[in-house]
C-alpha cells in the first residue's frame, strides 16, 4: 500500500516561502495515503495560478490545464475512467472568477470529484490584483482606492447552488485539513474543500494572524449539525464565511450512476468496436 512518500516527487514548488499552499499539498498527499489510494490511480487536474501548479508537485497522474477550466477537464477524465480518484485543484481567481460557471455546473452535476480551492483572496502569480473573494474595501494594485465590489463567499455560493458535500479548512490546521480532504475523497459525489491559504507576499490583510483571529472552527461546536442545509447556511452567514470544518454533507447518487446505459467497468477499458448488427440497425433508420 502506498505511503505519503509515494505521493512525493523531486520538484521544488515555486511557491514563496511561507505560502499556505505547501500545507495544502502535504494534506492532499497524506489524505491520499490515508484513504489507501495508489499514485497511478489518482489524477489531479489543476487550473492556472500559483495553486494551479500543484498537479506537478504530487506524484500521480496530473494535468495542469488552462485558466478556470480544471473542473471541466476533470469531469472529462472522470467520465472516461470512473475508477480513478479525480481531484481538481486551483485558486480563488481560477475557480470563482473565470471558472465560476463550471463550478456551479459541477455542483449541479455531482460527479465523484474532489475540488480543492486554495483561497488567498488575491491574485498572486500576476502579482497582487483583486480576486472575486477579496473583501469590500480591500486595497491593492487594481483597487488602490479600495475594492468597490463585494466579495463572493465560496461556501455560500456552493451551498446555494445545492452542493452535497461542503467543507472548509485553513492551511495551518493541517490535521483538520487532511481529515476533510480524506472525507471528501471518500465521498461519492462532488465535494468542495475550500481552504484559506494565505498569500504571504501580496495579501497584507488576510494574513495567518488575521485568519486565526477570525476563523470559527466548527469542530469545537458539538451541537453543530452538518446535515442541516438551512443551519449550514445560517452558520456561513453568521461567521461571514469564515467557519472551518465539515459544513454540510448529504447522501446523493453520483452522476456516473445515473447515466443511462453506463457500465460499472470504466469506459477506457471497454471494447470500442461497433458490432456489425448494431451498425446494420443504425443504417435502417436512414433507409
Amino acid at each position, binding site marked *: 500500500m502506498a505511503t505519503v512518500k509515494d505521493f512525493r516527487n523531486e520538484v521544488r514548488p515555486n511557491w514563496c516561502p511561507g505560502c499556505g499552499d505547501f500545507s495544502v499539498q502535504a494534506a492532499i498527499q497524506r489524505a491520499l495515503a490515508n484513504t489507501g489510494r495508489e*499514485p*497511478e490511480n489518482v489524477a489531479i487536474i489543476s487550473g492556472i495560478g500559483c495553486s494551479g501548479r500543484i498537479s506537478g508537485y504530487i506524484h500521480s497522474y496530473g494535468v495542469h490545464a488552462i485558466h478556470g477550466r480544471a473542473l471541466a477537464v476533470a*469531469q472529462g*477524465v472522470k467520465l472516461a475512467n470512473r475508477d480513478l480518484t479525480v481531484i481538481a485543484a486551483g485558486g480563488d481567481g481560477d475557480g470563482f472568477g473565470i471558472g465560476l460557471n*463550471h463550478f456551479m455546473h459541477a455542483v449541479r452535476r455531482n460527479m465523484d470529484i474532489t475540488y480543492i480551492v486554495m483561497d488567498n483572496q488575491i491574485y498572486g502569480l500576476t502579482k497582487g490584483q483583486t480576486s472575486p473573494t477579496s473583501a469590500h474595501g480591500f486595497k491593492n494594485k487594481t483597487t488602490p482606492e479600495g475594492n468597490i465590489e463585494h466579495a463572493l463567499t465560496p461556501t455560500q455560493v456552493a451551498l446555494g447552488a445545492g452542493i452535497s458535500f461542503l467543507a472548509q479548512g485553513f492551511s495551518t490546521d493541517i490535521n483538520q485539513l487532511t481529515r476533510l480532504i480524506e472525507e471528501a475523497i471518500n465521498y461519492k459525489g462532488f465535494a468542495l474543500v475550500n481552504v484559506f491559504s494565505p498569500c504571504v507576499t501580496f495579501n497584507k490583510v488576510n494574513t495567518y494572524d488575521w485568519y486565526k483571529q477570525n476563523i470559527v472552527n466548527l469542530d469545537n461546536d458539538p451541537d453543530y449539525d452538518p446535515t442541516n442545509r438551512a443551519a449550514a447556511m445560517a452558520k456561513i452567514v453568521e461567521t461571514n464565511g469564515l467557519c472551518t470544518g465539515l459544513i454540510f454533507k448529504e447522501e446523493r447518487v453520483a452522476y456516473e450512476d445515473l447515466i443511462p*446505459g*453506463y457500465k460499472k467497468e470504466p*469506459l477506457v477499458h471497454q471494447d470500442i468496436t461497433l458490432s456489425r448488427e448494431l451498425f446494420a440497425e*443504425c443504417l435502417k433508420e436512414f433507409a
Partner: protein
Amino acid sequence: MLDQLSWKVGGQQGEGIDSTGEIFATALNRHGYFVYGYRHFSSRIKGGHTNYKIRVSTKPRPANADNLDMLIAFDQETIDFNAHELRPGGVIIADEKFNPVAPEGMTVRFFTVPLTKFAEEAGSAIMKNMVALGASACVLGLQPETFESLISDMFLRKGQKVVDSNMAAIRKGFQFMKENGGEIAEFRLKPGDGKQRLFMMGNDAIGLGALAAGARIMPAYPITPASDVMEYLIKKFPKVGGHVIQTEDEIAAITMAIGANYAGVRALTATSGPGLSLMMEAIGLAGMTETPVVIIDTQRGGPSTGMPTKHEQSDMYAVLFGTHGEIPKIVLAPATAEECFYMTIDAFNYAEKYQTPVILITDLALSLAKQTVEPLDYDRITINRGKLATEEQLAAIEPGKLFKRYAFTEDNISPRVFPGQKGGIHHVTGVEHTEVGRPTEDAAIRTKMMNKRLNKVRGEFPNSVSYTGAENPDLLVIGVGSTIGVIDEALERLTAEGKSVAHAHVRVLSPFPTETLQKYVDRAKKVLVVENNATGQLKHLMQFFDIKGEFLSQLKYDGNPYLPSEIYAHCKELI
C-alpha cells in the same frame, strides 16, 4: 419523361413542412431515385415561412435545382415567396382552405385542392400533407403505393387504422388530381433504379461515423447547425455504454472532451462558428499537451451571431489560424454526407496517430441538407489508436520515476499512456515542458519541443483533392465542402457544350495539399475558386500555402448555397 425534377412544400414553421418533405423524399429514395433535400428555415420555432425543397433525380445530384417544377402551398405566403422559382408551366398545388390566389403574370398550372377538407374526411386535418403527397404523385405519374411502405413503417406502431387513414388521404389527393387534369404527360418522372440506398444529412453521417470510430463521450453545447450530431449520439450512446453530456458552454465542452481523450476514451465535440471561437484557447491546450481531440465545426453565416440558420463557408481562417501560438492542426473538409461518415472515422484515427486536435469542417448545406448516400460499408471502418506505450515499456520504469510522455522520437510522436496505468505517471501541462512534462523555459528544450510538435504531421494526406474533367482545361474550378454538386453540375453543362473544364475539390485544408493543387493549377489556362464567403478564404489559403498562379474568385455570401446556373453563368463568361 423527366430525368429529374424539383419539388417544394411550404407553409408556416411548426405546420409539418419538414415531415411532408421528409416523407416525399424518403419514399422516392426508397424507389431508387437520388434525392437532395434542402430546408429553408429561420431562427424561430413557430410561425414564419418555411419550406423544404427537394430534388429528385435518376443520377446523383447533391445540389439545389435552379428552378422549381412543383410547389405545394399550405398558405398564400408560400406562393408569394416561392412562385418566382417555378419554371414556365410549373405546377402549384394549393390548399383550397386559404382561398389561394395564383401568382400574377406567370404561366403556371394552378390547382386548388381541398387538402384540409380531404384530410378531415380521412380522419384528421393534420393529414393534409398526405393529401398533398397523393396529389403530387398523380402529377409525376407515380402510384399512391409509392408511399405505402414508408407510411406503414412510420405509423404501424400506432395501429393499422392509422396507416389506412393516411393511405386513404394520399389516395384522395391522387384521385382528385386525376379527375381534374392533374396527369400531365411532360411531368412524368423516369423510374428510379430501385436500388436501396440511404437518405441522410451530413450531421447524421458524422454522428454515425463517430459511433463507428469508437467515440464514446461527447460533451457539447447546442448550436445550429451542429446540434443534430449530439442529438443523434444521445440516442445511440446508451446502447454502447457511452454518454453525451450537455455542458454549460462550449469551453466546458472542448475541455471535457480533452479530459476524456487524455484519460483514454475517444471523445468529440461539435459546434458552429461562435462556439468554435470560444474553444480556441482549449484547442491550443490540446495542441501543446499533444492530446487527441476531434472537433466538428458546422459553418453557418458569420460573423458574430451572423445568420444562424443560413449557409456559409467562412470559418476556414479561424480553424486554420485560430488559437494563439503555434500548434499542429489537422483540418478535414468532407464534401458529401457519405464522406462525412468516412472522414469522421479518419478524424479519430488521425487525432490519435498524430496526437493533435483534428477539426472536421462542414457547412450548413452539408450538415443539414439530406442526400442519397450509397450503403455505408462496415468493412471500411478501421480503428487505429496510434502509438501506445507497451506493458514492457512501462514495467521498465523504476517506481517513483516519471514516464517520458513527450519523449523525443524519430517521427516526433511519443507513446501515450492513460491515467490508471502503472508505471506511466507523468505530468501534462499547457506550459512548455520537458520530456516528462515538467515545466521548463530552457531555450534548447523549448526549440526542440516546438519542432517536435510542429513536425508531427508531414506531407499530404491521401485523397486530399479530387479531380474530374479535362486533363488540360481552359478553366479549372476549385471548391470545398458542399459546393461539390453544384460545381459538377455546372461543369457538366459546359462540357456538354464542348467546353474544356475541370473540377478540383479540396478535402483536406491542413496539411494543405499544395503539391497536388499546384499540379492541377499548372495544367489549367484559368483557375476559378468558388466559395461561400466574402473574402475568398480558400483562394487566399492557396496563396498562403504557396501555390503559384493567378486565381479568379467567385463568391456568394447571401446565406444561400449556390445554384448550378450561377456557377455555370460565371464560368461561361470566363471561357
